[in-house]
């Protein structure tokens, strides 16, 4: 075990960088340049620091690791308590990986108010890492919700023409869901008398409360994931957000919902989760099929990828609620894969958007003739999104489908159509943008990827293949914790389904067992 308070460092470091940026003085151009490099250095060091988690993580243990605890609200049993297990550690790494990439991707695209922009991203990194590491209900909620402020500003200040509408929609949708979750968190706290998540995982909430609590959690997580029919904020937010904003939104923020289901709904409310699983299946299948069809009809590249996100996250929710080991590991893996792939696809759109300032599929065609490297990168991510074997997308989807087949073949079959539909809209997109003859006037002089852009895409390409060809290290990290989660859920379901009276009435029976 490391003595280093690594998670606290990861949470604080971006804030230190942001404070540093705040005090940079000088001429506008110099300030912008310095701000960019400070942001890059901070997030780069943050990433290197987070590698300690990857190498130091004990894959044999299902417990929380790198745990730190400090008094926060004395007398209330609400504490600053952080730690990671096999479910959350990879998301922390995803966050620290994507943030420097976002900084790099915004290097030239953002010229206006660079200081505020980079501060917003660094503050957001703190919030995201904190969210995944939090082991206290209220600490979790603070980080979960605090993300709204920087994201609201990023969409609203640096966004496209309809940014105000999109920023408000994003903010209010998410907030409305979150406050219901807050009521549930308060109720859980009131019942258990502690806000400590490890202890709450062992606490049995009254079965009669579970459906209400579950629905309140669902209100928040379903908006974040987002699940059909509360997904409508996502296409708007993605289309209007600047490229890096979309990357973080798709890469990390959407995972808050899936992570929340795995951290709270499943282990703490097993009986209600079982009861509501058909609802989740239905909404997931609708999300997969319906939003895939909607994606097919899009003329805006970012909107298409946004809808494909909804479809891919449908796999996550369906897999999580299969309560099988494969389903849950598949859900986590799919989230990681989606975090990398959809982030990369938004960056891909950002590359041509920076050059032509258009996201319409119509305006492109035949890019392969001018941009071979770009076409290659696009192809890799496109195929990963489709779920081609050998890419990261395949592993997640196949695991989810295996898990689903064990519980409900119909749901599995319908979800599997998403793979086909995904291939249809992605290949169609690729054909229209990359192949064909280069006839458009505006594209005649378009340049291929710059060195900076290659630096942005290279790690993502590597990761897509690594996760696709040799997923074992990732699965190993999540395996013990996922198995533990499955056990918790099974145990909870079994207890909830037992008739209550005999157990209470006959202590001899309990002793005899």
């Amino acid at each position, binding site marked *: 075990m490391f003595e280093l308070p690594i998670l606290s460092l990861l949470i604080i470091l971006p804030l230190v960088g942001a404070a540093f940026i705040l005090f940079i003085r000088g001429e506008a151009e110099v300030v912008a340049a310095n701000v960019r490099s400070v942001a890059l250095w901070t997030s780069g060091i943050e990433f290197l620091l987070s590698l300690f988690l990857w190498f130091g993580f004990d894959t044999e243990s299902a417990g929380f690791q790198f745990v730190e605890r400090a008094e926060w609200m004395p007398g209330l049993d609400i504490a600053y308590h952080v730690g990671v297990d096999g479910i959350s550690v990879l998301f922390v790494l995803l966050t620290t990986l994507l943030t420097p990439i976002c900084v790099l991707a915004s290097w030239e695209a953002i010229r206006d108010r660079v200081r505020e922009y980079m501060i917003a991203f660094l503050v957001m990194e703190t919030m995201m890492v904190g969210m995944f590491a939090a082991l206290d209900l209220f600490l979790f909620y603070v980080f979960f919700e605090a993300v709204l402020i920087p994201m609201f500003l990023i969409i609203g200040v640096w966004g496209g023409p309809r940014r105000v509408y999109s920023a408000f929609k994003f903010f209010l949708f998410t907030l409305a869901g979150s406050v219901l979750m*807050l*009521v549930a968190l*308060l109720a859980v706290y009131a019942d258990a008398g502690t806000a400590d998540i490890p202890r709450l995982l062992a606490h049995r909430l009254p079965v009669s409360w579970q459906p209400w609590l579950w629905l309140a959690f669902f209100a928040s997580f379903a908006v974040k994931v987002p699940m059909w029919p509360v997904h409508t904020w996502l296409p708007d937010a993605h289309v209007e957000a600047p490229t890096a904003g979309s990357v973080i939104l798709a890469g990390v923020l959407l995972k808050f919902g899936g992570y929340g289901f795995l951290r709270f709904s499943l282990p703490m409310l097993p009986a209600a989760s079982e009861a509501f699983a058909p609802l989740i299946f239905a909404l997931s299948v609708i999300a997969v099929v319906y939003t895939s069809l909607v994606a097919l009809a899009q003329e805006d590249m970012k909107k298409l990828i946004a809808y494909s996100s909804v479809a891919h996250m449908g796999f996550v929710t369906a897999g999580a609620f299969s309560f099988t080991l494969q389903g849950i590991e598949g859900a986590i893996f799919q989230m990681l894969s989606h975090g990398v792939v959809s982030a990369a696809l938004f960056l891909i759109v950002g590359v041509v958007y920076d050059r032509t300032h258009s996201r319409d599929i119509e305006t492109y065609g035949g890019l392969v003739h001018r941009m071979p490297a770009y076409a290659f990168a696009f192809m890799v991510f496109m195929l990963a999104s489709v779920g081609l074997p050998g890419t990261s997308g395949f592993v997640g989807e196949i695991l989810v489908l295996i898990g689903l087949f064990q519980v409900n073949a119909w749901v599995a079959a319908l979800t599997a159509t998403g793979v086909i539909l995904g291939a249809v809209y992605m290949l169609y997109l690729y054909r229209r943008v990359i192949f064909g003859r280069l006839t458009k006037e505006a594209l005649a002089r378009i340049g291929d990827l710059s060195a900076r852009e290659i630096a942005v895409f290279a790690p993502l390409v590597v990761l897509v293949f690594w996760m696709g060809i040799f997923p074992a290290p990732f699965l190993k990290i999540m395996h013990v914790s996922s198995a533990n989660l499955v056990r918790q859920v099974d145990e909870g379901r079994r207890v909830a389904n037992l008739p209550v009276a005999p157990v209470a009435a006959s202590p001899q029976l309990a002793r005899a067992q």
Partner: protein
Amino acid sequence: MPLASLPYLTPALPEILLALGGLALLMYGVFQKDGDGAAEARAARRTAWAALAILLVALVVVVALGKDRALTFGGLFVVDAFTRFAKVLVLAGAAAALVMTGDFLVRHGAGRFEYSVLVVFAVTGMMMMLSANDLMSLYVGLEMQSLPLYVMATFQRDDSRASEAGLKYFVLGALASGMLLYGSSLVYGFAGSTNFEALAELFRHLGADRPPLGVVFGLVFILAGLAFKVSAVPFHMWTPDVYEGAPTPVTAFFSVAPKIAALGLFVRLMMGPFGELAPHWQQVVALIAVASMVVGAFGAINQSNIKRLMAYSSIGHVGYALVGLAVADADGIRGMLVYLAIYLVMNLGTFACILGMRRGGRNVESISELAGVARTHPLFAAALGVLMFSMAGIPPLAGFFGKLYVFLAAVEAKMFVLAAVGLLTSVIAAFYYIRIVRVAYFDEPGEALDRTLRPEVAWIAWAASALVILFFLGPGPVLKAAAAAAKALLVE
């Protein structure tokens, strides 16, 4: 008079100090030569500094008196940890409001020394309200704070909006005082005492299920009168007009000091003498709280004047604070007191920002004037943004924690519907708070506001936003003080 029969004065030292100080300032002002504008402004400035010093000395004395319970004036006057907590808030709020006033009134042609004197007298009344231990001293304190407030609302007497505000405030305020007095007389008639302890003893003896009908009737009248004073729905109608019409520093003062004093009185009255009757008034308070939160959230959406918006915002905040009272236990009161402390800071900061909205030396009040200030005044916009997000209750800012403790108490008392409604209205309220952020950050700059902020206003804005941001680091001391105050109230 033999010295031995003098009452025990130490507990009332801050009030005595304030009263004497106010009289001294009045004398000083009255004996100035009049007619000379510059001399008048000088006198106004001097009394303002002196009044500030008096308030701060009173603050020190309140803290130094400690938190032990003490009674004096034949049981009319009480101090304990609760009064100490609330008095610190009132004095700090009044002092900050006085600092913010600065040269506002002079610039707007109303720079007279009476303003500071009125502030001191109003604060004296508020402190007496908080320390009241009898329905009679309660009424005296309440009127003592109200009369200076009516005058302050019309302080710009050649401004027709201010006159309208003052008149409205006076007529409706007098009506509310009348209701309160009538309710008190009913309670006295049916219970036979005006002393809080005697009343509490009597109701404890009778039990919660059989209070005399007249007492319940009187209680409702008292509730109505107090609801008016704290501007809770359905007695809130005066608030937007008064907030808009009164000079901005006066509005800042109105939104903190009298509100906290009246809420403190509300809590003492309900939890003290009428504590045993909680089942009778809990529902009413819960209803008032819900109605205030809803009206506060929806009413502000369409406002274009920022002071009017703040009026609705304060109605909403009173609703959240009253949730704590509706819970009617130590946790609820603790949550409410923490809420009030945070509300005080947020509100002072926001009004400092509003006072900073000037063009050509005149203050402007329309929200659209803020368009694009993030480009022209980045620090000002950042402070305003932080305060607005905090008002909306977004973590990790202080406003969130205020709501957290109040709703935690509500959920622990199994009042789930109250908590859910309250939090959903906070989403609606978030809409208009972030609309201000939107105007400041997303819109293109219009005609620029004045470049420089007056230092005292700027400092209050910075300090408030810093406190709001950093509160999450150490909520412990505030929580502990509020818990002690709540406990003091309940053990009587």
